[in-house]
């Protein structure tokens, strides 16, 4: 029930925020003085932590009036951010997924961040985890500052796994690095829970099926798109292997063939499943629910010597604004630096910090289960480049819907691949609107 209440409150907050943005444009003198508008898309536990970080910033900078707005996650957020920027009323700083930021840069909606401005605030490339920093560059230029990496991870119920004999003497989970070991662990967990071995959200859900597919498919070295999204390069053999494996999990009954996002959370929180596959951000949910759990890297089922996992990063960027006052840019960078300095608060919510001064600290290393999967940041596989790709994009909706239909047993891997290729080719051959 906590979950429902939270999502309801999240919705209410987003609705209130919509009202606020509506009014902000009418407030006279908004541009004068030390004001700072900030837009983000954080709900749930992330939203609570972001609010703490904003309060710390306000306390440290009493001269700056910070106006923070939270909007609904996904496509609606990017639509609003793009249209506000196009209408010359953008916020001073905005959160964007690394995989969505590039399209905004190509549409000319993002201000380039110059090295000398960044250096004044101590923001230099060597202070950031190299994978998110490098992945965020567009033609070698910096447009966004990565805050974190948020990989797809594995949650496991420690009580269930212990009873199932899956933990070694030190209490660590034995590696599930082959399809057989993975399925076997889920089967053993199912014998303990009497309900499910593991749960993955499938029903009315597109992002989760995409994330688990992409993690396994990239472990095999598979690619979806090439040439900035203008070509579809699905590898039938590899995709088929992954889809058959995923379908096998639901077909053999170790994972449910129909369960939605909230349902998957509820069954893991209630101990009805030994394993739960999702982004690390659900950590707060299970801490609140007092589930006996731990987290680790999503297993390297197909990778062999090379590990790969689906991930994205939250970045902070400055939307383009005509006749930008350098003082505003400076204030925005001050804010960005403050967010990075609070990486500890952010990491408590599960995200792997991109800010090395914190990530390399003993404090972070002592933080469990968060630091267990820190290595995922370096093995992160971002969604392929393309104007229709990225977190919550139509690319994810298309691939995720089709993958979900395979996992639910509604179509064969072969027909799913054909459908994916067909739908993606439609987008790939459309002239980019940016």
């Amino acid at each position: 029930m906590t979950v429902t209440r939270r999502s309801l409150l999240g919705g209410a907050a987003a609705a209130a925020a919509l009202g606020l943005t509506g009014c902000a444009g009418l407030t006279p003198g908004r541009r004068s003085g030390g004001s700072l508008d900030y837009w983000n898309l954080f709900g749930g536990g992330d939203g609570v932590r972001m609010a703490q970080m904003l309060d710390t910033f306000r306390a440290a900078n009493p001269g700056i009036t910070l106006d923070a707005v939270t909007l609904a996650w996904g496509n609606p957020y990017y639509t609003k951010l793009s249209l506000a920027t196009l209408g010359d009323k953008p916020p001073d700083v905005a959160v964007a997924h690394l995989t969505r930021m590039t399209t905004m840069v190509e549409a000319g909606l993002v201000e380039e961040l110059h090295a000398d401005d960044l250096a004044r605030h101590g923001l230099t490339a060597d202070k950031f985890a190299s994978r998110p920093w490098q992945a965020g560059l567009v033609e070698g230029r910096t447009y966004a500052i990565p805050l974190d990496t948020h990989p797809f991870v594995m949650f496991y119920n420690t009580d269930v796994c212990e009873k199932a004999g899956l933990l070694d003497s030190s209490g660590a989970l034995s590696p599930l690095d082959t399809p057989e070991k993975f399925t076997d662990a889920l089967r053993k967990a199912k014998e303990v829970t009497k309900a499910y071995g593991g749960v993955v959200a499938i029903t009315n859900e597109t992002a989760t099926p995409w994330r688990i597919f992409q993690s396994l498919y990239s472990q095999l070295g598979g690619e979806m798109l090439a040439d900035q999204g203008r070509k579809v390069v699905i590898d039938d053999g590899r995709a088929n292997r992954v889809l058959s494996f995923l379908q096998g999990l639901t077909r053999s009954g170790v994972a449910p063939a129909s369960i939605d996002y909230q349902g998957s959370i509820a069954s893991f929180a209630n101990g009805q499943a030994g394993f739960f596959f999702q982004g690390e951000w659900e950590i707060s949910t299970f801490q609140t629910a007092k589930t006996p759990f731990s987290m680790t890297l999503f297993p390297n089922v197909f990778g062999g010597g090379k590990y790969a996992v689906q991930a994205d990063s939250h970045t902070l960027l400055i939307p383009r604004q005509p006749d930008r006052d350098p003082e505003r840019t400076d204030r925005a960078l001050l804010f960005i630096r403050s967010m990075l300095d609070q990486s500890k608060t952010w990491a408590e919510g599960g995200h792997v910090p991109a800010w090395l001064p914190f990530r390399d600290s003993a404090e972070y290393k002592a933080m469990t289960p968060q630091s267990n999967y820190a290595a995922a940041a370096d093995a992160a596989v971002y969604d392929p480049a393309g104007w229709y790709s990225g977190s919550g994009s139509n690319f994810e909706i298309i691939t995720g819907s089709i993958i979900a239909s395979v996992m639910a047993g509604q179509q064969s891997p072969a027909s799913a691949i054909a459908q994916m290729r067909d739908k993606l080719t439609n987008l790939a051959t459309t002239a980019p609107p940016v």
Partner: protein
Amino acid sequence: MTAETAEPAVRTDRSAREDVPPERGRGSGLPAAGFLAPFLLLYLLFIIGPGLYGLIMSFFDTSAVKPGLSGFAGFGNYAEALQSGDFWSSLWHTLWFTILTTPPLIIVAFLLALLADRVKHGRWFFRLAFFAPYILPSAVVALIWIWLYTPGLGLIETALGKIGVTAPNWLGDPNWAMPSLALTTLWWTLGFNFVLYLAGLQEIPRDLYEASSMDGASPWQQIRSITIPMLGRTTTLVAVLQVIASLKVFDQMYIMTSGGPNFATRSILQYVYDQGFTNFRIGYASAVSMLFFLVVLAVSAVWFALVRRQEKEV
């Protein structure tokens, strides 16, 4: 979505017109124009203006993230839409939804109104009970029904399980998703048609029933020969409004299934939304909207003509 919120206002307006027979004098054009001006101005500003702008954009490769209209596309957008499988399947989903919802929303509303009208005591309670869901916002309705339909934990599945029935995967099975959405919509919007029928029932002169029962008519004969014919005008109104409302479906599908599973419930309006706001292809989305506008116009005209003729025959 603006149209969606404005809809109840328009509906009440029309029903009021239905209840009060027109009895106006002619002349006095200027004051009349003065009274109409505010409405006309808003209509021009928010319906005609954007409509024309949409029509213009549909002939260009307009992008949501680039200023101006961009390159001229001629009928390119229209041709693309007509050749797109996604366009046709989402159009069919909207029509399928309309077919699934319109008959029950008329028949069930009529039956409930009939029952509520017969109740001697506490009629207000039934009126309120049947109308209450209609005033809920779409997001609330969607949340309630998502939980009712939730696989594994949902109330409906649990209840059916107790009597030994295996529930289908309501929102997760492509064949069940649309009927499930139709059922939700039936519960949600039934109240409006119910109230129209109730008002219609109260307009029927009581002496007709008295006279017929003296002639020995059974209640069933009374319903068939008095109630249904006397409600002809109400039925026309309810049917036309219902078809239009069902064709405009967006909210509950967007929130409850996001058009899934595997696009089985993506309505044409969501297709427009996906293309225009997510893919930034405003020009193409405008062309699809124009095509849909023609479909609504055609369906409404045919439907209206059919029920009108039937009404005259009765």
